[in-house]
């Protein structure tokens, strides 16, 4: 160890991987519907795609959680994305490819991908 800067680098590198262990209120929340309907429709690859994208883009303050059936089984796989301080956005009929765009445009840049939302599908 030669300098405080070096220490700070180790800290930052590890912090993202440990701060999940604190009670968090801020940060973006991604909820993947994984009831039987969701899983049957392919929610698992969607979940994995989110993890992959988050990893790739170093997004430390995103929480990815699962939930049960959201209620509109015909539109599964469904995903809810909530940015801090903003309204929840519900995406439907998700695929791994769609996840890439949602992460890039919505999670990172704050632009809702309107064409994938439940509003567009109805």
């Amino acid at each position: 160890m030669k300098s405080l800067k070096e220490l700070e680098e180790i800290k930052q590198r590890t912090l993202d991987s440990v701060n999940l262990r604190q009670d968090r209120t801020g940060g973006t929340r991604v909820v993947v519907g994984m009831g039987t309907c969701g899983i049957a429709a392919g929610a698992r690859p969607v979940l994995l795609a989110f993890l992959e994208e988050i990893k790739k883009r170093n997004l430390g303050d995103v929480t990815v959680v699962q939930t049960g059936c959201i209620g509109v089984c015909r539109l599964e796989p469904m995903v809810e994305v909530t940015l801090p301080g903003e309204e929840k956005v519900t995406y439907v009929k998700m695929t791994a490819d769609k996840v890439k765009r949602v992460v890039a445009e919505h999670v990172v840049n704050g632009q809702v991908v309107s064409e994938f939302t439940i509003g567009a599908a109805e």
Partner: protein
Amino acid sequence: MEFYRSHVLICGGTGCHSSGSGEVMETFKSELAKHNLENEIKLVQTGCFGLCAVGPVVIVYPEGAFYSRVKDEDVSRIVTEHLLKGRIVTDLLYHDSVHEDEAIKSLNEVEFYKKQMRLALRNCGVIDPEKIEEYIAFDGYKALGKVLLEMTPEETINLIKASGLRGRGGAGFPAGLKWEFTAKAQGDKKYVCCNADEGDPGAFMDRSILEGDPHSVLEAMTIAGYAVGADQGYIYVRAEYPIAVKRLTIAIAQAREAGLLGRNIFGTDFSFDIELRLGAGAFVCGEETALMASIEGMRGEPRPRPPFPAVKGVFGKPTLLNNVETYANIPPILLNGPEWFQSIGTEKSKGTKVFALGGKINNTGLVEVPMGTTLREIIYEIGGGIPDNKEFKAAQTGGPSGGCIPAQHLDTPIDYDSLTQIGSMMGSGGLIVMDNENCMVDIARFFLDFTVDESCGKCPPCRIGTKRMLEILERITQGKGEEGDIEKLQELGRSIKSSALCGLGQTAPNPVLSTIQYFREEYEAHIRDKRCPAGVCQALLQIIIQAELCKGCGLCIKACPVDAISGERRSPHVIDQSKCIKCGACLEKCPFKAIVKG
């Protein structure tokens, strides 16, 4: 970067380990592999969460689900339901960690944690103690960097002095002063030592810190080395703490590898290294001069002071010796400033204290509270009260060196000075709760038995005096007490306190003296009436059938293994005291509660 959507924290402290957390960890590993979840879910073995009573404890983030008493066979349910499908297994959650509507409480809302303030235990149960990066992620080694690069040794010592930190090993000596004495002592070589020879029955806070956050002790010792001018440190830890020894060994290797121990730390010309010394489990080796003799490879016996270790310590050189918990407090003080530390606690005792709760208490475990918290808050709010709503009788603090605190002092704010005032002491922080089924004479006998066993035998007051006291106590508990015994105990106790060579002997009579002070009538009942009010002392115990309640059903006659009970059906039975072996079998069988101990 690595990203896991969920972290599973499994307690790897000695408490949970002995209730099977090692197997639980292994099962988690294989279950996660079975469901291909290894890349999504991270398993972390942490230090103690504090709630040892409900171990093994497993916490799952981001939800913060607090699973308690997790058995091997529960693991596959947690993995398939919670981790795979996202459905929390509510029936395995710790009862107080869920709201009535089944929503999960944040840990800070759980009664056990609500009033706690975890400074020394800040990383226990949060980080993986075997990974230096995780310690660094929570500001680890930042204080060391700040001290080495931005502060002089004098400034460091002044800061610790200003914080008001007092030694957590028991006596409560101001830590900053000790640092100053060692820094000012003349010597070509100096040492920094850590007392991790935690020997009090019932105390395990030092072990938990070493197991859960070993780097905090290494960092603080290195800071102390810089402040007092030492380049070598020793941690004297008991060999009976294998997990602590293992994690310390790993931590030292990692710190050396990272250049946080060794030569030219942070690019300065300061060099420091730490080695372990294992103690063989003698209680007296927790005494500072005996500990240092043991480090040198000599017999662990104390010597008269002065000279104090700050002047003449290990290998005759000036030595700084602090306890594990004291060291664990150092990095946060340096990072947050002395004013912050000053703002916690009471006027003369700053900061927090870790207590090991044990005995007749629901939440057996480790708690850390600000100084000045009352015993009532610790026992009834954090500790969850006494099992079966029995009545509180006394709390024993400070182990074999401390005393018993009776119910009238439940509301005393606890700090070093208030405890001394009511005839006990802080000690290392063991807190044993007793209810009305504990006999105070027997408790005093138990602790004295321990000190007699552990006395090194060097000085006569301790070697002979405590033995004589024990003999008197044994006589009393066997119903052979005589008038004047109490006075004899007090006289002996006082002279041992004033004449013994070291802390062990000087404090050994405390459990006896304080129980006499507060529970004299119990001693008198043993001596005069040959009666043990709590029904503990076997020799004094009488089991009797209350004639007015006995219906003569005969169940007790059948239950008695030695045929000591006789009586006609439907008329009161009697126990032949000469045959009775006081096993209590009849007592449990009686449907009318007619049989009592007395």
